[in-house]
């Protein structure tokens, strides 16, 4: 932290304080905070330290190679962030994933959402110096990372969704492992309430801190759990992509819009995701996991892998040419709604891929929430937002 005196404003001395870009909890960003005494008068978020030109890089890569590139924006939530892109390209290719693949995508998306929320809660905990929440969040996340690695063979960067389906079938024994994890997590969430949500210290730090009223949340285009905590019933999953149209769920909507409410929405969404995975596993249809247009083209000697639950790709898969056109697609990530705008000129690489990530949209909260609160509240507000810098900077 570096601070310097800025001068007078309305008769008070104002101090300018630099927080970051290396800061004690997570991420690489800088907050320029203007203080009057202990009261924040203005915050300028200075983002862009982890800008990796994802949009530009995707213009020089074949479509299938773009998938593993863009999942690096949010490696903790890699299935959710690639799914809308994959669905957009599928639409331009004129194919649709088989039902079983859609369910498997949904299952991995929800597993990713749980791990993303637990990550956010853990980081939120350490912002408030609540190391138990940090340890618990990251420890319990490991359970879901383990489930994801059973399903996909990788812990974080799964590259699971591909055009026309998914890459691995459900492994044996996954359902039992998941049901055990569900029972464990539901029980543990009660302890989360006791240890974190109803903890008087946390209540004191988060209650009525960083209140985001409903109208402001809508006006500034806030998204995800932060929006729902302000009482807006909006969740991109309601659009029914992947298998969501066939599952029964009701988004978690809060009403107070303060820091504690944002934590509450995340805790309840974990319950909801567990429920969604169970529903999806119950309704999981039989059938192929890869579109037959491509499965047909795989060399005959490699067809044996499909029976073993593993997809093999045909040689022409690198040179896919979606038809000329523009397409817009969206999906709900752990942090909020991600939108893709894809322009294809009929070539092997995207002509333009515009990505708007949830954290990029939520970054404005740094400017609108803290003014009026004390400096001590700044980490609490940051922690309750579940902001993920690499995702915002792209």
């Amino acid at each position, binding site marked *: 932290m570096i601070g310097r005196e800025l001068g007078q404003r309305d008769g008070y001395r104002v101090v300018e304080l630099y927080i970051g870009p290396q800061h004690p909890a997570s991420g690489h960003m800088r907050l320029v905070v203007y203080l009057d005494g202990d009261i924040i008068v203005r915050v300028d978020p200075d983002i862009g330290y982890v800008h990796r030109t994802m949009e530009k890089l995707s213009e020089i890569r*074949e479509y299938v*190679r773009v998938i593993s590139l863009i999942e690096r924006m949010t490696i903790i939530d890699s299935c959710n962030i690639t799914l809308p892109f994959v669905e957009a390209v599928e639409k331009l290719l004129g194919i649709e994933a088989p039902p079983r693949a859609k369910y498997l995508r949904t299952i991995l998306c929800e597993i990713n959402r749980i791990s993303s929320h637990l990550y956010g809660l853990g980081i939120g905990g350490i912002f408030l110096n609540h190391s138990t929440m940090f340890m618990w969040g990251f420890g319990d996340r490991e359970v879901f990372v383990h*489930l994801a690695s059973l399903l996909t*063979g990788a812990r974080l960067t799964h590259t699971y969704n591909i055009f026309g389906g998914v890459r691995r079938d459900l492994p044996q024994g996954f359902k039992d492992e998941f049901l055990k994890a569900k029972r*464990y997590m539901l029980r543990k969430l009660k302890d989360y309430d006791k240890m974190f949500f*109803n903890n008087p210290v946390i209540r004191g730090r988060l209650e009525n801190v960083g209140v985001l009223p409903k109208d402001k949340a809508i006006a500034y285009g806030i998204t995800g759990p932060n929006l729902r905590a302000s009482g807006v019933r909006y969740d991109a999953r309601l659009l029914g992509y992947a298998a969501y149209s066939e599952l029964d769920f009701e988004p*978690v909507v809060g009403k107070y819009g303060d820091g504690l409410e944002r934590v509450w929405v995340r805790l*309840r969404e974990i319950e*909801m995701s567990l429920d969604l995975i169970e529903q999806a596993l119950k309704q999981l249809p039989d059938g192929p996991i890869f579109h037959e247009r491509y499965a047909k083209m795989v060399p005959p000697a490699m067809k044996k892998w499909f029976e073993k639950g593993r997809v093999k790709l045909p040689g022409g898969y*690198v040179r896919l040419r979606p038809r000329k056109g523009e397409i817009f697609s969206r999906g709900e990530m752990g942090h909020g709604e991600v939108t893709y705008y894809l322009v294809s000129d009929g070539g092997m690489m995207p002509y333009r891929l515009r990505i708007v990530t949830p954290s990029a949209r939520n970054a404005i909260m740094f400017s609108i929430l803290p003014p009026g609160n004390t400096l001590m509240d700044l980490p609490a507000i940051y922690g309750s937002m579940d902001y993920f810098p690499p995702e915002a900077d792209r």
Partner: protein
Amino acid sequence: MTNKEERDNHRPSINPVLAHLEAIATGIKWLTRKPMTLMYPDMEEKKPEYFRGFIIFNYNKCIGCSLCAQICPPRAIHMYRVPGDKRIRPGYDAGRCIHCGLCTDICPTDALDVSPVHDEVFEQIGSMDFDPVEWHIISKKLVEEHAKRKRKLVITRVDEEVGLRYEPVE
């Protein structure tokens, strides 16, 4: 799922003293449980099926189609000319590889495969870049060494009490 009424009063007021005691009691409860930590260098996790570690290459199965080099997202695979071989063959830069496994999925002859080796240490960056023959040799060596490791092998299972537990594998 929580129903609507429950959500409307989801934030009951708390008694500061009791809530503190409850938080401490919860902490003590978890103190007595086993930790879910994997004691890594002493124990080694048996990886799930198709775990994507170091990519292993079998020179003799390769037909030199170069599909793996085309699909590799970070261009970790390059095609080389090998003296005395008419076809071009893939070489591998382990430092660039992101272990996406796409090359093994597209290889039409199973010359490439995933392996559970994920913690091999190389002393120099240059020594991670293999030409086709070196790749074939190191693949064989790594798989053999991995099978011979003396560490205690455990398998990870979800546990209802503590989250994860590690069962020894015979």
